[in-house]
C-alpha cells in the first residue's frame, strides 16, 4: 500500500482536520465527532440538509457543506457508513428550527444508520425527514437486490435540494424537490483499477492489465461484470445505453450531465468521455443544459469514472443555477 498518510487508523480524523484548516471560512468540525457543519450555521428558519456516508469519496461529503448545498456532512470510516450517534449529532447541530432532510444513499448500512439517527432526532423533537438516492442503473431492480445504489448522481440532489432549502422552501417542498431529482437522475460507472482502504492495506479486488470492471459501486465493491478494455467511445456508449434504457428521454428534452472521476483518472480522460457523451446526446436531439466534469464522488485512488444524466424541467433548472458556495462546488 502506497499512500501519503500517517496511521491508517487515523486517516479520517486527520483528513477532517485538514479540511477544516483549509476551509475555515466554510466549515467547522463538531468537537469530538466526525461531522462538518457550516462555519456560520445553523441558519435560523432554514431547512437543513445533512448528507454523509463512508469516507474515501472526497470531496463528498464535507466538500459540499456551504451556502446553497449542505448544512452538515457526516464522515464514517473509509467506505463504512457513519454510526447513528454521529448523524444524530449532525442533525442537532444544523437544525435551525425548520427541520432537517437526510440525504441517504441506498446502501443497507447507510439507510439503517441514518434511519436510526432520524428516530433518535424525532424522539428529541426535531422534525426530520429523509430521501434515499438510488441512481445507479448498473444494479438490477429490487426483486433481486436491495435496490439500486446511490452514486455520483447524489451531487445533483445536494445542489438542487440545497438550493431549494436556501431559497427558504419548507421541509415537505425540499423533500419533494429532492425526490424529483432522484426520480430523474441515472448514473453508471466503470473502473480501470481497484483501490485500497488504508486500514485493509491491500486492494479490494484485482484487475488484469487489459481488464476493466463495469457497473461497480463507489466502495470498491465488485461491479456487474468484467470485460477487456475498450475505447473511450465504446465504453461511453455501453454506459449511456444502460442509462438511456432506464430513463425516458426524447428529442428536445434538457439534461444536466456529470462526468465524475473516481479519484485516479485524469481530467484529460474525463473530458474525452464528455466529448463522447455529448455526441451520443446530440444524436438523440437531447439538449445539454449544464455539464459538470471532475472528481465529485470518488473511491479513493480508483481509476475510472461514472456518467450521471439528470432530466430537467424549469423548476430543476432554476435551482441548478442557483448560487452555491462550498469548498468543492461553487457557482456564481
Amino acid at each position, binding site marked *: 500500500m502506497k499512500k501519503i498518510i500517517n496511521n491508517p487508523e487515523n486517516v479520517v480524523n486527520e483528513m477532517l482536520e485538514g479540511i477544516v484548516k483549509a476551509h475555515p471560512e466554510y466549515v467547522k468540525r463538531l468537537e469530538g465527532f466526525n461531522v462538518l457543519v457550516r462555519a456560520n450555521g445553523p441558519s435560523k428558519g432554514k431547512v437543513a440538509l445533512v448528507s454523509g456516508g463512508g469516507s474515501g469519496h472526497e470531496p463528498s461529503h464535507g466538500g459540499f457543506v456551504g451556502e446553497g448545498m449542505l448544512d452538515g456532512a457526516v464522515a464514517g470510516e473509509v467506505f463504512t457508513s457513519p*454510526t447513528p*450517534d454521529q448523524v444524530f449529532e449532525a442533525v442537532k447541530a444544523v437544525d435551525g428550527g425548520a427541520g432537517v432532510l437526510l440525504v441517504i444513499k441506498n446502501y*443497507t*448500512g447507510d439507510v*439503517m*444508520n441514518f434511519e436510526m439517527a432520524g428516530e433518535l432526532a424525532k424522539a428529541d423533537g426535531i422534525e426530520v425527514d429523509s430521501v434515499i438516492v438510488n441512481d445507479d442503473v448498473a444494479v438490477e431492480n429490487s426483486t433481486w437486490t*436491495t435496490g439500486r445504489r446511490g452514486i455520483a448522481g447524489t451531487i445533483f440532489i445536494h445542489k438542487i435540494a440545497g438550493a431549494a432549502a436556501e431559497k427558504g422552501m419548507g421541509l415537505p417542498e425540499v423533500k419533494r424537490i429532492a425526490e424529483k431529482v432522484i426520480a430523474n437522475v441515472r448514473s453508471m460507472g466503470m473502473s480501470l483499477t481497484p483501490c485500497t482502504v488504508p486500514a485493509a492495506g491491500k486492494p479490494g479486488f484485482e484487475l488484469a492489465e487489459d481488464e476493466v470492471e463495469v457497473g461497480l459501486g463507489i*466502495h470498491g*465493491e*465488485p461491479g456487474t461484470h468484467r470485460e477487456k478494455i475498450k475505447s473511450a467511445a465504446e465504453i461511453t456508449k455501453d454506459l449511456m445505453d444502460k442509462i438511456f434504457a432506464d430513463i425516458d428521454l426524447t428529442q428536445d428534452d434538457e439534461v444536466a450531465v456529470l462526468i465524475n472521476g473516481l479519484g485516479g483518472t485524469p481530467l484529460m480522460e474525463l473530458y474525452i468521455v464528455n466529448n463522447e457523451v455529448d455526441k451520443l446526446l446530440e444524436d438523440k436531439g437531447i439538449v445539454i443544459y449544464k455539464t459538470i466534469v471532475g472528481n465529485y464522488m470518488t473511491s479513493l485512488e480508483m481509476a475510472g469514472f461514472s456518467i450521471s444524466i439528470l432530466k430537467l424541467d424549469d423548476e430543476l433548472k432554476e435551482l441548478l443555477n442557483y448560487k452555491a458556495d462550498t469548498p468543492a462546488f461553487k457557482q456564481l
Partner: protein
Amino acid sequence: MITRDLLLDILKNIAAVIKDNRQFLTDLDAAIGDGDHGINMNKGFKAVEEKLDTVRDKDCGTILKTTAMTLISTVGGASGPLYGTAFLKAAMVVNGKMEIDNEDIVKMFDEGIQGIIMRGKAKRGEKTMLDALIPAYEELMNSLKDGSTIAEAFNKACKAAYDGVEYTKTIRATKGRASYLGDRSIGHQDPGATSSYLIIKTVADTLNR
C-alpha cells in the same frame, strides 16, 4: 443458566475471537462486499471490551444494552445497526436480571433475530447473517426442548450455524452489498453469517469450558 460473570466472559471471548478473525472476515467481505466487515466488527467489539469495565457490577440487561449501544456507535456499515439492534432487543429480555435462565436465552435469541429482521428487512435464504442465526436458533430451541443442557444446546446450535454458513455459499445474495453482484456472489460464503457463526461458537466454547 448464565451468570453475570459468565456473560462478561462470553463477551470478552467474542471480542478476542473477532479480533483473531479480523482479516478473515475482511477478506470474505472483500470478495463480495466492500472489505470492511472484519475491520468494523473488531473496532466494535474492542470498544465493547473496553466499555465492559464500567458495567461489571450492573445487571445483565445493562451489560447487554451497553454492548448494544457501543456496537451501534462504533461498528457502522450494515452490521453495526443489525448486531446493535439484536443485542438491544436481547438486553430488554433480561432487564434488571443478574442471571439468565434457559427460557430467557431462547427468548433473547428470538428477539435478537426479530430485531435484525425488523431493521434489515431480510429473510432466511438471502445470504445474510440470518442464514446462520435462524438455523442456530431453531436448533437451540429444539435441543433444549429435548432436554439438552444449555452447553450441549449451544454446541448443536453452533453446528447448525456452521451449516448455515456453508449454505450461504450455494445461494445468491439478494440483500446487502453482495446482492449487487448477482450470480457472482454464488460460491462465496457470507461474511455476516460467518461472524454470526463465530459469535455462537464462542458462546458454545465458553459454556463448555
